[in-house]
């Protein structure tokens, strides 16, 4: 295929289908709606199914059912809709059903519920936050692979800028290597053979062939998430070597911060930018290393301060950490906000540097 000018939602839909997604269920909510529309248009072309679920709760449970039956499945929403899905995301983490949740968030106020989860139990949700449509296309395909590899629900943290920006992208299937067969998936074929399957958060097994039970099962899952944290952490660090100031941002805010940092560096300011690509697992060690020479860390996020908690944990009190952003419905799609502009961010950074020096 050749590069095409695609709207982000359609590019993500094509990437999902290129990754083998054949089942999608959703409920409209801006700015997620366009992805649902693209899936409804494109999935039937590949004999896939797109469901108009009656609520976000049903949508995520449909995806769970399709995932349990072995399909590559997806669902999505944003904000309050993601909140409604949290119970099922937790359930899927604990009964090990893979699917991808597309959180086309309203701004960055979903950081907590993307990284902490709102469901019950000791689980984590692997979460990628692409900076633009091109990265979203790659992350979408990788997430379907990682969901199957770890048998876990995973999340793409997009937003209005991912969902509605047009970008020239080439959606080609990416080969991430072989995966084990889905011999755990339910198809009914082993009924009556003594080897029938079971997907159950309590993992009680069958009479005569007991499972590990909840304690051992959940402990093993906790260890699986520790392994994911060791292996799957991703980040981007720009000019942090020797920097006195490091600005941390995530998702589509990243390119704006990158531009600000580039301009200031050209002016002689010793400043770098750091962007977690995985929100969970958060790149704690890499951020601590990036801030080694810094005497201040600034966190730009479009919310009242959510990721800043993780930044503070990462630097563990060695460097003062200050917030730069603020609440805005900027890039919610409802209306244009004011804070996501290079001059606005640059002014804030200038101000922060001066404040610390005085």
């Amino acid at each position, binding site marked *: 295929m050749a590069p095409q000018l695609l709207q982000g939602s359609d590019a993500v839909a094509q990437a999902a289908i290129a990754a083998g997604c054949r089942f999608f269920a959703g409920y409209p909510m801006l700015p997620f709606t366009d992805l649902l529309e693209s899936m409804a248009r494109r999935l039937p072309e590949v004999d896939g199914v797109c*469901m108009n679920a009656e609520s976000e709760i049903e949508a995520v449970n449909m995806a769970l059912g399709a995932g349990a039956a072995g399909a590559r499945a997806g669902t999505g929403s944003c904000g309050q809709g993601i909140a409604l899905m949290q119970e099922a995301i937790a359930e899927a983490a604990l009964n090990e059903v893979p699917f991808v949740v597309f959180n086309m968030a309203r701004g960055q106020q979903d950081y907590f519920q993307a990284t902490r989860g709102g469901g019950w139990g000791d689980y984590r949700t692997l979460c990628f936050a692409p900076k633009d449509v091109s990265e979203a296309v790659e992350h979408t395909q990788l997430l379907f692979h990682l969901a199957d590899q770890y048998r876990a629900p995973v999340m793409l943290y997009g937003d209005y800028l991912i969902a509605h920006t047009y970008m020239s992208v080439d959606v080609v299937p990416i080969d991430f290597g072989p995966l084990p067969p889905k011999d755990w998936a*339910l198809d009914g074929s082993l009924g009556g053979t003594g080897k029938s399957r079971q*997907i159950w958060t309590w993992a009680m097994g069958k009479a005569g062939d007991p499972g590990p039970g909840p304690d051992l099962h959940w402990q093993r899952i906790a260890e699986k998430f520790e392994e994911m944290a060791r292996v799957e952490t991703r980040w981007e660090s720009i000019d942090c070597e020797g920097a006195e100031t490091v600005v941390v941002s995530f998702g589509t805010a990243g390119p704006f911060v990158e531009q600000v940092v580039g301009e200031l560096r050209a002016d002689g300011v010793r400043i770098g930018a750091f962007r977690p690509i995985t929100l969970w697992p958060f790149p704690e060690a890499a951020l601590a290393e990036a801030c080694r020479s810094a005497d201040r860390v600034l966190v730009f996020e479009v919310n009242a301060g959510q990721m800043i908690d993780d930044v503070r944990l990462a630097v563990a009190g060695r460097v003062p950490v200050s917030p730069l952003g603020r609440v805005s419905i900027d890039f919610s799609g409802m209306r244009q906000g004011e804070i996501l502009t290079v001059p606005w961010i640059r002014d804030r950074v200038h101000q922060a540097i001066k404040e610390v020096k005085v």
Partner: protein
Amino acid sequence: MTTPSPAGPTGAGVPAGGPAAAVLIATDAPPTVPNRKVAGALAPLQLSGEHHLCPGCGHPVAWRLLLEAIAELGLANRAIGVVGHGCYTNIVSLADIDFLQCLHGRAPAVATGVKRVQPDTAVFTLQGDGDLASEGLAEVLHAAARGERITTIMLNNGVFGDTGGQMTAASVVGQRTKTSLDGRQPEAHGYPVPVAELVATLQGSVYVARGAVHNAGSVAKTKRYLKRAFELATSGAGFTFVEVLTMCPTGWFLPTADGPDYIQDTFEQTYPLGALKDV
């Protein structure tokens, strides 16, 4: 309330004109030879007779009918059960078919996902009235309206049995529970939700029936309902629904043996038995 059997012989025996092969065991006198197990009591596909359910519970009878229906229709190696949360959840460990245990109330949505990507399977949900009529009414109505090719089975005992006897949306008027101490009062608690009747009004449902397991005739009819429901759903006709009234003497605060009479005298007045829809 059951009346205790009168003492003394009641004349039990082989009725005149009955099948020649019928062997009835007289129960009006102590046995002359020690009773012993003469055959296995497990249903087809049942892995164990051990379960944690209370004496007098109707669920095991419903389980048996479900497994017999699946086995007799030759669906054992195509069946996928999606099971909600309740006393009946234990079937996930006790039957030799594929099971997915899911969140409270969500089984019809989960089953939709399963069936849509495995269209050749026989997908059914097993839920209670707390799971389905209270927590998950939206899921079952929308699955029915969409005409999903699945069978939903609701075991209705009008009470949250697993949590110890609280009122559900299906508790009948006057029913005493731990959260309706003076009986379900319409002015305080509203009226029971007749799920089968609601499902029957939806165009996507092709078969709706309400059976029970409190006497031999109901047991036999309920099995026919289940088989018909599975046949129609797996043939692609549409959504099928079978409600089964089950005894819960523990949750009804009744002597164990009084469960069947309570169904007949109380539940059947609210939930009449029979096939409501068969297109």
